[in-house]
């Protein structure tokens, strides 16, 4: 190795360190906050590695039965909104791709540009008239604003790249359109569906703005519950940080294990919702 190459190597690793450390340090600090007792969290200079670890913070958060309710709410809202989006969005992406109806993608773009709050005003009134406020239904429906465009957008892109020959062969053999979709197109599209599924789950799980307006005390999702902890219930940092970590942990794990799908999806459409 020449000196020039060695300098290059050092420069590269220094750059990598500079780039990655804000993310690493942040999440380590989050973990540290969540594992410290109040005394350590209120200490100055700050304590990074506490002598006593406060597992209690996590136990407290998990033990409060409200938290379990909110967790179930989040599961129901995200699960339903994602499942519904896949049911209507995957065939739609297929149809749009096969019809080459590229103009219809404009609706998806408008949905992408529109601030989430603009949907909330009319839909809030609608849910009020229908008497649905106080149930999880309004949140499931409005989360479709996030999940449906993601799924349609990704599936259009995916079905445009899948080969037509197999489908044509199946049609010549007498398969109906539905059979072609169900037995030929759909199996090939599994990786695309996985991408759509993962991104829809993440952006629905993370969504905050819809819940803050539509959720009542019993129908909060986790992000709303955590926000309410800041403003009302909790003032001590340990349990707060523990709650924050629990809320975002599923997403962080998904990010690490499904990185390839996430990167593929985000660079294909860059479709953050809401």
């Amino acid at each position, binding site marked *: 190795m020449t000196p020039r190459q060695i300098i290059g190597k050092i420069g590269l690793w220094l750059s990598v360190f500079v780039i990655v450390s804000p*993310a690493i340090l*942040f999440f380590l600090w989050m973990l540290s906050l969540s594992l410290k007792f109040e005394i350590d969290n*209120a200490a100055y200079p700050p304590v990074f590695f506490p002598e006593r670890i406060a597992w209690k913070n996590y136990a407290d958060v998990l033990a409060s039965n409200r938290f379990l309710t909110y967790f179930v709410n989040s599961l129901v809202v995200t699960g339903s909104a994602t499942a519904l989006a896949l049911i209507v969005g995957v065939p739609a992406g297929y149809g749009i791709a096969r019809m080459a109806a590229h103009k219809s993608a404009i609706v998806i773009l408008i949905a992408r540009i529109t601030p989430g*709050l603009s949907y909330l*005003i*009319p839909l809030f*009134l609608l849910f009020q008239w229908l008497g649905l406020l106080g149930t999880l239904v309004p949140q499931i429906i409005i989360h479709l604003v996030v999940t449906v465009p993601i799924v349609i957008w990704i599936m259009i892109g995916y079905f445009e790249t899948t080969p037509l020959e197999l489908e044509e062969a199946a049609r010549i053999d007498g398969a109906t359109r539905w059979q072609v979709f169900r037995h030929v197109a759909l199996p090939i599209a599994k990786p695309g569906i996985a991408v759509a599924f993962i991104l829809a789950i993440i952006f629905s799980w993370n969504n905050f703005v819809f819940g803050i307006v539509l959720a009542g005390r019993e129908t909060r999702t986790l992000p709303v519950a955590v926000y309410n902890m800041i403003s009302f219930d909790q003032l001590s940092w340990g349990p707060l940080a523990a709650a924050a970590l629990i809320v975002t942990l599923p*997403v962080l794990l998904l990010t690490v294990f499904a990185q390839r799908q996430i990167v593929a999806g985000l660079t294909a459409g860059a479709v953050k919702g809401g």
Partner: protein
Amino acid sequence: MSALTQSTPAAARSDAAPEKELRPPSYWPFVVPALVVVLAIIIFPWVFTIWMSLNEWKVGSPTTFVGISNYLRLTSDPRFIEAVGHTMVYTALSVLLPLVLGTFAAVVFHQKFAGRGFLRGVFIMPMMATPVAIALVWTMMFHPQLGVLNYLLSLVGIPAQLWVFHPATVIPSLVLVETWQWTPLVMLIVLGGLAAIPTEPYESAQIDGANLWQVFRFITLPLIMPFLFIAGMIRMIDAVKSFDIIFAITQGGPGSASETINIYLYSVAFTYYDLGYGSAIAVVFFLLIILLAAVMLYARQRMVWTEIASGA
């Protein structure tokens, strides 16, 4: 007739085939369910919002048609005008900083080094993490007395800051969070662009003895320009609409120092329940985003023409 078809089965088949071809398969049934959903949750809200914006519409009182007076009210609402200013500053910073840092990060992640895949995964975690959860931890880090940020500043001899607790520093502090969160998206898009660059220009640059900066400035940068533009556009759309981080950390405060259009829209619609006026803000807000996108497209077009002109 039947004898004829029997005697020429091949002809009969070739007759049937074009008939099948003439009727192209309709894919409408695949689209209809999604169309219904999109009509209900995207188109209907939009039409209804425009209608509401023409009415005096407050929760709990009768509605009256008032024409464009909600829009006229916007032009003389100092809080709205102030919010537009905050939004512009916030957006400009939240586009530029991630673009610069994200490009740098992409160039680095384009190199080969041990653990690259894992480190890239760590690097994109801020963007995927739940914004409210992140906002909560940043709020603790911004704490003037106990926050870790002031401690870190003290290590390098910089006096303690008030961060999000002072009107002068609140927007830059929020931009810091936004930049930390969204630089990864720029990185991913630019990284995609770098992967598509051919190697020949680099080889000839090496022969010509160009240094790292020259290579970046005169080869890499022009080639990734289209990707930077897309990243900038997406970043602009997201930064203008930014809500979770601002709302969870400052709720637009202190005072109204970090109140952007989106935060003001929330207050009007769901704190004062002035839905008609809120709808007018939503419509103007949307038009503003379209306008910004159009300006960026126009600037990009101009840039391309200047490049071509200077090249010739």
